[in-house]
């Protein structure tokens, strides 16, 4: 459970009781990760798609049952459906599918990628994650950017937990390699510093 999850659960409960300010605070806790996830799926249209998702979330809030992490999973599922609708309308594949496959041939590293990703800006993170195959990218986005655990990630994706765990591990290993390559400064610059 993340540091904000207990607070989020309480805010959602109050929002379900009609407290608009609690809803707004829940929005502010969830929106950054949700927007990052949607951006990984649809690219530059992410703000519009996430906004559509929030209209549905606001309308259906009374249906939801669960705690703070559950709310992240529920909202991610709604956002995913809106993103897939958007992509169907656009008749194109997710951006993650369009990137250079050569990047994937970089050597793998260790499972320190998740920790390393936390030190990057959202934009840097998303740029790296988009370079993964779609199933790995989505698993990593849900784990690292939205903050879901393995079972919740599997539920959002409608897949078996084992398959999602494998995709997530492979994605993070790829990212570790990408991060290691990106972090290695040119020798001349390092000497001059």
């Amino acid at each position, binding site marked *: 459970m993340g540091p904000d999850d207990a607070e989020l659960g309480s805010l959602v409960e109050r*929002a*379900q009781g*009609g407290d*608009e*300010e609690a*809803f*707004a605070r829940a*929005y*502010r806790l969830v*929106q950054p990760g949700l927007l990052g996830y949607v951006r990984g799926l649809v690219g530059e249209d992410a*703000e519009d798609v*996430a*906004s*559509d998702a*929030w*209209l*549905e*979330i*606001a*309308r*259906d*809030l*009374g*249906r*939801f*049952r*669960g*705690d703070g*992490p*559950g*709310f992240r*999973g*529920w909202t991610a*599922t709604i956002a995913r459906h*809106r993103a897939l*609708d958007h992509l169907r309308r656009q008749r194109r594949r997710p951006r993650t599918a369009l990137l250079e496959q050569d990047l994937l041939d970089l050597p793998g590293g260790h499972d320190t990628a998740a920790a390393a990703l936390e030190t990057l800006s959202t934009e840097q993170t998303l740029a790296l994650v988009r370079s993964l195959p779609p199933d790995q990218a989505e698993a990593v986005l849900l784990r690292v950017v939205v903050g879901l655990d393995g079972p*919740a990630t599997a*539920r959002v994706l409608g897949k078996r937990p084992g398959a999602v765990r494998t995709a997530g591990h492979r994605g993070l290993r790829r990212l570790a390699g990408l991060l290691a390559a990106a972090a290695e400064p040119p020798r001349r610059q390092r000497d001059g510093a």
Partner: protein
Amino acid sequence: MTQEPDADDDPAARPGTRPGIRADALCADPREALARAAFRAARDAGKHRALRTRRRDDWRPARVRGRAGRRPTRDGER
């Protein structure tokens, strides 16, 4: 399909309701303001109480869901 807030459902859009400055009028993020408007519309239309929980809306731990049993749903979700 894009979900648009229904202006007819938004009590803030009706005359004579909720006078004074609303919190979202001061909100810097217009998308947050949209979400808040949708929240108010659903709440004031009673949707937050009327809509039933479907299986996909129940994110309680599996053991709790199991204890609660399978409630019948109206939405046709299997």
